[in-house]
Each structure stands twice: as C-alpha cells, then as structure tokens.
C-alpha cells in the first residue's frame, strides 16, 4: 500500500497521455465502487483503462461489470447506486440511445451516477465520428450535462461531477468530444489520490436500500403526486446553478487551475460579436478570436460548460451587450434548427441582438480556422441571413444533385448510398 500511494503521488506530475487514459485514471481516483459498462467507440479506451485498474487491484474495492448492453450498464449503475455504491459508466452515440429508458429512471429516482459521454454522431447513416447529437438528444432527460473544452477539463470535470451528483442526489453526464479529446495525446495533470480525497468525501447517499432500515425506491406515483415529484427533479437540478460554480471555485482553489463552472467567457466583455459554443471546438474558436482581435474586430467567445441546468441568467449577462451572436453547434433539431441557438435566444429574449444558428462539425467534419474565418467574415459583413439556419461548409452541389434525383425519379434510392456514389467514395473515412 505505501508503494502505491508513493507511485500515485509521483503520477500527479503533468504527463503526456491519451485523453481517455487520463479520464480513466481520474475516475479511478474518485473511488467508484461499481463500474458497469459496455464498450462503444470512442468511449472504449476509458472503460478499458478502468477495467485494467480494477484487474491489477490499483482500483479497489471496485466491482467492474462487463454487461451485455448499454441498457444493462445503466440498469446495473442504478441498482448499485441505490444500494449505496458510487457508480460510474461511460458510453456514446447509439449506446446512449440504447440506455435512454434507464437514463430517465436514474434521474427520476435521483441517483447520483456519473457517466462520461464520448460525444459521437447518431445514425442513420451510421457514423463513428464526433458531434453532439448523442448528448444533445438527452439534454432534457433530467441529467446534469457538463461539456469539457480540453482533456484537462474532462479530467477535472469528473472529479467535480461526483461531488455535484452526490450533493444533489442527481446523475451527471460529463460530455467530451469523441476522438478529438478521447484520443488526443496531450499533457494532462491527473489529480493525485490525496488531492481527490481532499475534495471528494466518501459517498453518503440520501436514499439507500439498507436491510437494517428497509425502504423501497421506485414507487408508482399517480396523478395525486406525480407532478410534485417531477417538480422536485426540476427544483433540484436548478440548485446546480449555484453548486456548479461553488464546486468549480473550490476546485480551482485546491488545484490552482480553473475548470468547469457554468460558462467561460473569452475576450467577450467588450465584444460586439460573440461566438457561443460547447466543447473542444472552443479552442479553435479562441484562436480565431485572437486573430480577428489583432485585426481590430471586437469579437469574443462564450463557452457553455454546463448546458443542463441551463444557466439562463449567466448567459444573458455575458451576451446582452453584443449586437450579434453566432452560435456554433455540433447538432441540430431536425424540423426546426439550432438547439443551443434556441436556448441562447431564450436567454436574450427582449433584447435586440441578432442570433445566428450555425450547424458545424457533424459526423466528424473538421471545423477549421479557415471555415470559421469565412463564416465570421459573413457574419461581420451582415451576409448571414437572419432567421435562417446556416450549415458550415455544406456541399450544396451534392445536396442539389440528390434533391434533383428525388424529383426526377420515384425510386430514387437511399440518400447515403447515392451521395457516396456521387463522391466516388468506396470505404468511408474522415479524410
């Protein structure tokens, strides 16, 4: 044991490592007692790393359950959490969708499970690459949702997430961009066991299946009280708006670096134009903001770290002075448009700012500085049509060709295959 603590002490040093391995190490130091998971790209390396730590005894006591599906993964986490164990799982994409029924049970019952979502697109068409369609589809599932900008922040958010979850007795999703963060090799400071123990006390459940003091959890509730129980879900989640910044501030005092919080403004205090986004794309956006600032453009960015609960007042306060808001999001609501954009518009209601919804980075399409410069030049030149959903780098010719096909021929065939044939793509790849 002494050897182990010395080793983990030394490992606190900043190290060049894969994002997934760093998250696995950080989660292990949060001392989860049950991990139930089913592998799916791009989350696999995280649970592989954790299963290794359980196998070698480095993470003990901990029960690692290799279950048969994501539905089972979340169900086992629910059972474990209700029995008083600190429970963790991770998933992505279709895996998240497969556990949806259980997600609502976890939040409805108020069980403080922590889950990593390694953000990935949702099929069809099947696609393993990054966007936010998966976690955005569950934004209203009653889970708290935190979005990491960097691998370091993903690591730090997991420590904060357990604390937050257990304080409120609510489940927390830590969203990190699949591949872009999970598979990036970067310098990361993984907190030591002593550091984590100092900030994260042992799990003291608010409700517990305890043979000595028997209770039931999961009663059927009829019209007499269903709304009240549901209201409490909402009221409890809204408490996170106070707790998230408190925990972030406690974290930064203990660790000497800033991670998490509700929002992260970047050079936006005096900006006329503000870009709003979530996740790792903020790094590229900040680079573009710096370049435009050098040209004298009054532009900034606001990163949303906590999307649920939605920090409406903080977002309003951070954007209200701007004339133009460009929301760049890696998902959209088919049939209406931007998701984050709608939320931002809600925060700005009654103010005159123009909010542009831009969908970008779907299914792993790279969001480049070049594309962002082009987009922002259009925004600054008032060339973005108000009220119209903009798709960054959309290949209109490809779309038009397929639309023409559907007009000309009844049995025009499947879109995905038609478009891949037009492109001459044999085996799909990101480049």
């Amino acid at each position, binding site marked *: 044991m002494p050897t182990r603590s010395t080793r983990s002490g030394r490992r606190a040093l900043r190290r*060049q490592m894969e994002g997934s391995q760093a998250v696995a190490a950080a989660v292990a130091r949060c001392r989860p007692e049950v991990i139930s998971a089913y592998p799916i790209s791009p989350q696999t390396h995280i649970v592989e790393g954790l299963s290794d730590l359980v196998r070698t005894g480095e993470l003990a006591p901990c029960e690692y359950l290799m279950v048969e599906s994501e539905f089972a993964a979340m169900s086992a986490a629910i059972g474990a959490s209700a029995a008083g164990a600190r429970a963790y799982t991770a998933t992505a994409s279709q895996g998240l969708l497969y556990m949806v029924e259980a997600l609502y049970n976890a939040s409805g019952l108020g069980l403080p499970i922590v889950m990593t979502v390694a953000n990935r697109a949702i099929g069809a068409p099947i696609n393993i690459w990054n966007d936010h369609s998966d976690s955005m589809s569950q934004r209203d599932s009653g889970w708290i949702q935190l979005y990491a900008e960097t691998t370091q922040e993903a690591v730090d958010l997991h420590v904060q997430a357990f604390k937050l979850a257990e304080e409120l007795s609510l489940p927390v999703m830590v969203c990190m961009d699949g591949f*872009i963060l999970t598979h990036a090799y970067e310098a990361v400071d993984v907190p030591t066991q002593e550091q984590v123990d100092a900030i994260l006390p042992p799990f003291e459940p608010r409700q517990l299946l305890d043979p000595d003091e028997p209770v039931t959890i999961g009663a059927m509730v009829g019209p007499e009280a269903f709304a009240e129980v549901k209201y409490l879900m909402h009221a409890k989640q809204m408490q996170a708006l106070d707790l998230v910044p408190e925990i972030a501030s406690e974290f930064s005092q203990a660790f000497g670096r800033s991670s998490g919080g509700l929002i992260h403004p970047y050079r936006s205090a005096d900006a006329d134009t503000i870009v709003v986004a979530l996740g790792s794309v903020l790094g590229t956006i900040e680079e573009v903001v710096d370049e435009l600032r050098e040209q004298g453009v009054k532009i900034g960015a606001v990163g949303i770290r906590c999307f649920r609960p939605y920090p409406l007042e903080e977002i309003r306060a951070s954007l209200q002075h701007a004339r133009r808001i460009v929301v760049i999001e890696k998902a959209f609501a088919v049939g209406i448009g931007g998701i984050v954009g709608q939320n931002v518009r809600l925060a700005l209601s009654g103010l005159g700012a123009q909010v542009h919804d831009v969908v970008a980075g779907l299914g792993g399409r790279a969001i480049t500085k070049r594309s962002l410069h082009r987009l922002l030049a259009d925004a600054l030149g008032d060339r973005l049509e108000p009220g119209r959903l903009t798709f960054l780098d959309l290949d209109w010719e490809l779309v038009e060709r397929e639309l023409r096909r559907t007009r000309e021929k009844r049995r025009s065939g499947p879109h995905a295959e038609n478009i891949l044939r037009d492109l001459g793509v044999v085996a799909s790849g990101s*480049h």
Partner: protein
Amino acid sequence: MFQVRIHGRGGQGVVTAAELLSVAAFGEGRHAQAFPTFGSERTGAPVVAFCRIDDKEIRLREPITDPDAVIVQDPTLLHQVDLFVGLGTEGYLLVNTSRSFAELGLDEFVRRFRAERLLTVPATEIAREHLGRPVPNAVLLGSFAALAGVVSLESVRAAILEKFPGETGRRNVAAAEAAYAHTQHEIGAPSPA
C-alpha cells in the same frame, strides 16, 4: 508551431509514432498534441496521424493541412493517397523506402523542396534487423530527429522507453539509434545543391 503529418497503413504504428513524437517533445518541456484521423482502423488501410509541437499551449483542434514535415511509413501509399498535400517548399519529407526519390519517380517533384530536408530511409529493413518485425515507426522517429532536429534522439529514446518498457522498448531504441546514425551519415554528405 511545428506540425507533422504521418502517413502509413493500419498495423504500422502510425498513431503510436505521432504519440511518441508528442511524448518526446513534451520531454523537452514543450507543448505537444498528437491525434489520429479517427478512421475505422483496420490492418492495411491508409492511416494518418498528426502531431503539433509548440512553445505555448495548443488550443487548435483542426487536422493538420499545412504540415512542416511529412513522414511516410509506407511508400506504396504514393499512388493511393495525396501524401504531400499542403507541404510547403521549406518542409521536411521522410519516406520509408530502400529506394531513392528518383527510383520512386519523384525526382521531378522533390526539386521544389530543399534537398537537405528530404530523405528516404530503409526503415523497414532497419526495423527487421533490430526488432525482427517490419514495424518502422520508432525507426523513422530516430531518423526524423536527425533530419529535422525538432526533437533530440535522447527525447525520442526516452519516449520509446516510457511507452514500451522492457525488451520491446530497448529494441526499438536500438533501431531508432541506428536510423539516427544512418540519417546523420546521409545528410552529412556534401549537399548536392
């Protein structure tokens, strides 16, 4: 910022090469970011990995389109992938092959670059000799250390041993050292230009 793009095929350790390079740069106190192209990896399929090295924090998350250096682990990709796209005339190019650029039919193409920054190296042969396996990634990093000097051989050695402790690491280090010496000898020759 110095940006490296590594091309190869699934199974050749392309992603590992980029990771090792980032570990080597980190070991020198620099900031580094390595990442793969995130394809459906399978043995033999073209794979690309990237590594950025800088003296300040790296926030950029886009793929590398304008590399300062390109490392090609498998010359059979020449006819399949646009390996040199975005490589400027000041760029470094390292190709794993026992043949020369002329023999690869690239003599015309390479004239636009600086001769002392281009090299073919028989990395597969060196790997076979030291590892008994045709895995050229560590070999090429040894060669790259000599050619570009962006990271030192010592840092490459430390990176290999960090990721592969034990016999595998030692053999890869020996292979990288051999490639470093080979490359120093090659570029030490009077410049044809």
